[in-house]
Structure formats: structure tokens, C-alpha cells
């Protein structure tokens, strides 16, 4: 039980940070605290959030996946092409998820079977996947995605004040990913492999399989995020998603995921993504000069990461007190 509270401490810190930020923004411009704006924040957080959830799997397993933005792009254009050619939208979504899983698994295979360092392996596939997305489309966007597909994944629900359906998908992904990570054997193995690969191996955990699966999850999340973007934009571009990997990593890190692996939660990552979105929208609402936005964003990332350290210090003091 105390374990539970302790493990949620990190998320509480992020929530406090979000609240402080929101207050400052609201004081500076009251528009910030409106329902519509809140919706904007959540929408903005969706795609990065889902990508970051996947990234969290890769990072906890002791790796990283730089290729997610490109997996995202490949899924966008291939699913785009499938729906345009009249494939059943549900089937297309299914195939898209499969594709994402396959591309993630390729990363996993490179890392486990060829023993490549995750950073380099996915730096390589990042380039390969991007190239594939271009070659598949000849560089052209895939246009006129059918509404049947679009409304499945992206639809403003007016009866709920304009909430978009994909926000629910975001929550669903977060819940499923969170439960899998926290409650299943597979989740357990990922923590074990990231925390102490040698120990996991000696315990009979199939380390390779756990890693491959982790990257597959990363790929699946990228695929889901991609299809949401495809649905919401109605056009699939092979250039989509470039640079998204860094945002995803930032969200995971802010949410308390340890870059060396073995530690992190989906809840934390989700709040990390929300924090970044809230920050971005805040800067836009305040009409902060773009150039200054870079500076402020960077500083906030640093401060948020510093919280991790403060909070760990704090936790260790508390823990010591409990002992006495």
C-alpha cells in the first residue's frame, strides 16, 4: 500500500507542476482556463501521448526507439493507401497495427539478435523507414481518406462539447498499456530486463523475447498514433512524424521514466505529455514570440527533469524517517 503511494509520488509531482503552470498562464490570459482550451490541450497531447506510451516501453526495457516517427509515417501512408483503395476501415486499422508491430519487432530483432545498441539500431531504421515511406508514395501525399475510416478514429462529438473521439482512444491506449505494464508477466519482464538484464536472464526470462515484444508495443503505439493523425487530417504524408521521437522521449522523461531503463510508469508518461501540451498551448495563447518559445520549452524540460531528482531525494528522506 505504501508502495502504491510511493510509486505515484512521481505523478503527483508532475500534476502539481501542470497546475502551477496552468495558474500562471491563466493569470496572464484567462482564456487559458476555458473548456475549449482544455480540449485543445488534450487533443494536442493525444498523438505525442500515445507515441510516448510506446516509447516508455522501449525505454523501460533498457533501450530507446528513435524510429517511431518514421514507423508513424509508414503506417500513415500504407493505411492511407489501403483505405483509399476501398479496404474495409476496420480491417485497415487492424493491418496498420500489425504493420506497426512488425516494424517495432524488426527494431527488437536488430537489438537482440544482431546485438546492436538500441540508439544506433533505431537511428538506422529511422532512416530506412523514412525512405520506405517516401518510396512507397513516391513522396506524394495520400489524399482523400474516406470518411468511413476518418470518423472511426477522429470525430468531434458535439453532444460532449466537441470532445474528439481520439481522446478516448488515447485514454484506452493508456489504460491498456498501463495495465499490461503493471499487471502482466510481460510487463514484469520488461522492468526486470531494463533493471538488470543479467539477473533477468539468469532467472530464465527470455530477455530477447521481452525486448522484441517491448519494441513491438512501441511500434503498435506509433501505428495507432499515426492512424489517428491520418484520420484527423484526412491526408497521409510520407513526411509525417519527423522529430516526434524527441517529444515522446521528453514526455516519458518528464513523467519519471529512467532513461537507463527499469523504471517508469504509463501514468507518468501520460502526464508528461499533458504537461508538454499544456505548455505549448500556453505559449501560443500568450502569443509568446516563437524564438522565446524554444527557450522557455527547453527550460521547462530541464526543470521538469530536475523534479525527478528532487523528488527522489525527498522520497529517500521520507523512507529513512519511516525506518526510525
Amino acid at each position: 500500500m505504501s508502495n502504491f503511494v510511493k510509486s505515484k509520488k512521481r505523478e503527483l509531482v508532475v500534476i502539481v507542476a501542470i497546475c502551477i503552470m496552468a495558474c500562471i498562464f491563466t493569470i496572464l490570459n484567462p482564456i487559458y482556463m476555458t473548456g475549449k482550451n482544455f480540449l485543445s490541450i488534450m487533443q494536442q497531447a493525444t498523438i505525442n501521448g500515445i507515441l510516448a506510451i510506446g516509447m516508455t516501453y522501449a525505454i523501460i526495457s533498457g533501450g530507446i526507439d528513435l524510429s517511431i516517427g518514421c514507423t508513424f509515417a509508414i503506417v500513415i501512408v500504407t493505411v492511407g493507401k489501403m483505405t483509399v483503395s476501398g479496404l474495409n476501415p476496420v480491417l485497415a486499422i487492424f493491418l496498420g497495427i500489425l504493420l506497426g508491430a512488425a516494424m517495432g519487432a524488426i527494431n527488437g530483432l536488430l537489438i537482440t539478435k544482431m546485438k546492436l545498441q538500441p540508439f544506433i539500431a533505431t537511428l538506422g531504421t529511422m532512416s530506412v523507414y523514412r525512405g520506405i515511406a517516401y518510396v512507397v508514395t513516391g513522396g506524394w501525399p495520400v489524399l482523400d481518406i474516406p470518411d468511413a475510416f476518418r470518423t472511426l478514429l477522429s470525430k468531434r462529438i458535439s453532444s460532449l462539447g466537441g470532445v474528439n473521439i481520439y481522446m478516448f482512444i488515447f485514454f484506452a491506449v493508456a489504460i491498456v498499456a498501463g495495465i499490461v505494464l503493471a499487471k502482466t508477466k510481460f510487463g514484469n519482464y520488461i522492468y526486470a530486463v531494463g533493471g538488470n538484464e543479467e539477473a533477468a536472464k539468469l532467472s530464465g526470462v527470455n530477455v530477447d523475447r521481452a525486448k522484441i515484444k517491448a519494441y513491438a508495443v512501441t511500434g503498435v503505439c506509433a501505428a495507432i498514433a499515426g492512424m489517428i493523425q491520418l484520420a484527423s487530417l484526412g491526408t497521409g504524408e510520407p513526411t509525417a512524424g519527423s522529430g516526434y521521437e524527441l517529444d515522446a522521449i521528453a514526455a516519458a522523461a518528464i513523467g519519471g521514466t529512467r532513461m537507463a531503463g527499469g523504471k517508469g510508469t504509463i501514468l507518468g508518461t501520460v502526464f508528461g505529455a499533458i504537461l508538454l501540451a499544456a505548455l505549448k498551448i500556453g505559449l501560443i495563447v500568450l502569443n509568446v514570440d516563437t524564438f522565446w518559445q524554444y527557450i522557455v520549452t527547453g527550460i521547462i524540460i530541464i526543470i521538469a527533469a530536475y523534479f525527478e531528482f528532487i523528488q527522489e531525494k525527498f522520497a529517500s528522506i521520507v523512507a529513512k524517517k519511516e525506518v526510525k
Partner: protein
Amino acid sequence: MGNAVEFKKINKRFPGAHVLKDVTFSVKDGEVHALLGENGAGKSTLLNILHGVYAEYEGEVLLHGNKVAFKNPNEAIVKGKISKVHQETNVVKDLTVGQNITLGYEPKKGVFVDYKELNNKVDNILTQLRCKFKSSDLAGNLTAGEMQMMAIAKALFHESKIISLDEPTTALTLKETDALFEVIRQLKKDGITILYVSHRLEEIFQICDRASILRDGQYITTLNIADTNRAELIRNMVGRDVAAVAGRTKSGIKQKEIVLKVEGLSSGRKFQDVSFELHRGEIVGFFGLVGAGRTEVMRTLFGADKKTAGRVFLKGKETHIKNTHQGLKDGIGLIPEERKTQGFINLQSNINNVALSSLERYMSGIFVDDTKRRENCEKYIQELEIHPAKADFLTSNMSGGNQQKVILAKWMSTDVDVLIFDEPTKGVDVGAKVEIYRIMEEIAESGKGVILVSSELPEVMGMSDRIMIMSEGRIAGELNREEYYEDHILNLAIGGNDNE
């Protein structure tokens, strides 16, 4: 009684080393069988072969008469019902005890891990072992002794029939050791065969039935413990007679000058108000139970941790040590207790590891002169009889005792005035132990102050001019040689505060 394990003509080669040579012997069902030998004799390697860590070797291993060849440790655990408690415990610190114990074999309910069932099962085993921690505790918060118990619990969880313990007591307190022996006797009663590796011979006489001895990768003999004695064991291990007791050979090397003076040193909750003096040529022992805070005091003195109060005087001058680099410059050195994680750089050779703390000694101009470094390293390899005697060898590939010697060489290469030994003989063989005692004495003789932190009472009593006893972060007592009584020391260590 049949044979639980049979080794037949086992050979093992590593790049650059032939480690096991035609090893042949057997272990009887239900006995506690000791595996003895000097550092680097090949004990761990043999166990690794038995448990499937090394799948590549020559020769045959038989379990209960059947030839086995495990591809990995897990197969050994599950198929062979044979578990190993590691020399360096393998723990996933961010998982709970229960998760660690059941890792790979968690009970499931549907697609989820059944944590209720898991914790129940594990707590049962833990109670059986009389452990104080629970299945739901975070493994990272356990002490070394508790981690060891966790590993044994894991073996029981897998219903192992054969359990190997590779130097299980190195990190344990006397109390924990006693508890462990109790458990081993219990396991033996339950018909479990135990392979036991230790450099502490008194333990062998306490719990083992027979002992097999390896020397330089070769099998020497198997002895009945009831029919042998300490000297015979040592002679077989070392190949000659060694007086393997901790004791001083020189007297009167303590000088007048106080080299280190500590006044009211505190560090938050870790320890408070530690004061003592250390003379040149003196060896001061620090005794206490695990968790007494000795290591923390030493780390703080060296600059690895921050102090919150108190003053430190070196050679009569107050110093404000902010980090280890300054500690080194001001003349304090520390040989850390966790050899593997704190002692040396994994990817580097002996040359680099020995030279790391004294690079300015090998400079020509602004560059580090490799020849000088090598010469220095080779000098210590000879002097300390480091094996293998190769300067280019990766320190991480050496046996535990030899790693310790490399770390010693590193500090002997510096010219610090105060050298702190934190559990210096942990996992070190009898011969090398004596060696280390001799070196320690020589260092003191050369006019340096030596602090010996140890949990082995005979060692502290034998080597120290004075003993400081710590308990719960405070100095519980200070005894001079003539006041050394085991009971008194232990009493202070357990509840020193009550006596004051």
C-alpha cells in the same frame, strides 16, 4: 546413498587461460559439500558449468547419474532442479522481493499476474526461512544478507534438490550467518544437497560433511571434514603450510604523531558525532553490525559523501574535503567494500586500474607514460602475487581475490597518509588474506595510518591496535588491545548505547 553430482574430466578454457583441467569428483546425495581453493582456483567456474552459465566446456556433468548439458541457468533450475546462489547477488532492485523470486514463473490469473497468490507463496517460503522482510518489499531496500536469503528463497521456490552457495557469507553479519547456517541444516534435513564455497574455513567445519579441493584448476582431493583439520585443508589448497590466522607480526610501529583526527563528524541520519584519532603506524579497527554506519563514516572521510557537521584534521591541519579527488590529494585513501561495483573499471586492464589514482606519478610532460605505468603495475603483480600475472589482463576477468589485490595495488601506488580498508578480505582466500594482513602491517610500518573496517571479529581483534565499535551510527565504544573480549565487543556492537 547415490551421487547427486558427478564431474568427469571437466576442462574449461577462456581466451588466454586454461581454467579447469580434467576435474573429476562427485558429490553425494544430501550432503553439504565444500568446494575449496585459492582465489582463481576455478571454483566459481566449476559451479557455473554445473548450473549452465557456461554451456561450452569439455567433459561430462552427471546429475543423479544422468548426463546433463544445460544450455542456460534457467534450464538448470527448471529441468535440473538445481539452483545457484550467486557470489555477487543478482537482484532487480526496482522489483519487489516476490517479483524477484518468481521472476519468469509468476502465478497467473487469466492474463494477469496473480499477485495475491504470488505474495502468499513467497511469504510462506520466507517464513520458513525466518526472514523478516515480506514478499511485497522492494528488493532494492534489502540488506546484503536479506538479498542472500531472497536468493535461497528463490531456490526453494523452484523446489531445487541441489543448491550451490558461492561465498554466501561475505556480506553477512554474524547473526545473519548463524541464521543462514540454521537454514542450511534445515535444508540438509529435507534431503537437499548443498555445494558450499567459502574462504572462511571455520564455516566449513561448522556445516560441511566433505570438502573437495581445487588448486590452479586441478582437482586435488576430497576430504571428510570429520577426519581432517584446518592445516590439512590449507596445505591442500595452497600446496604448502600457511599460518592462516589474523595476527600482528611486528610491534611498536605505532608512532607518536597523530595523522588523522576526527571531531564530532556527522552526516544527517546516517551517523552522528563520530570522533577518534589515528596515529601514524597504527591500525585502528572499526567493528559493528551491518548497517552500523561504518562504511558511511569512511566514505565521508574520503569525500565520497557529504558531512553535515564535524571537523577533520589531517597531519594537524583541518581539511575541508569536498570530493574524493581532494580526499586523495589531502592524503586519504579508501578501499571500498563492494569490489565489483566500486573497485575497478570493467572495461580496463590491470595497468589502467592500478594507475588510476596515481596518474601524476607516470607523467612525462603532460602525457601519461605507458611504460612507467606498466612497470609500476608489473612491480605490484610480482609483489602481491597477482594471478594471472598479466598487466594487460582485464581486471573484470580475474577472480575475486585477485581483483582485490589489484585494488590494493592501486592504493599502494599512491602516497596517502591514511588508508582505509573496508572489508578488505571479503572473498579472499586464506593465503591472500595473510598476504593482505602483511601488506596492511607494512603500510602502517611505513608511517601511514591504517583503518580496518571489518565484520570479522577475529580479523579485527588480530590486526587492530585499537577497536572502535559502532552501533546505529554512533561510536559505542573504544577498546585497547588488553580489553579485547569477544563478548564485550559484540555486546557493544549490538546495543552499545545502553551501556553508556
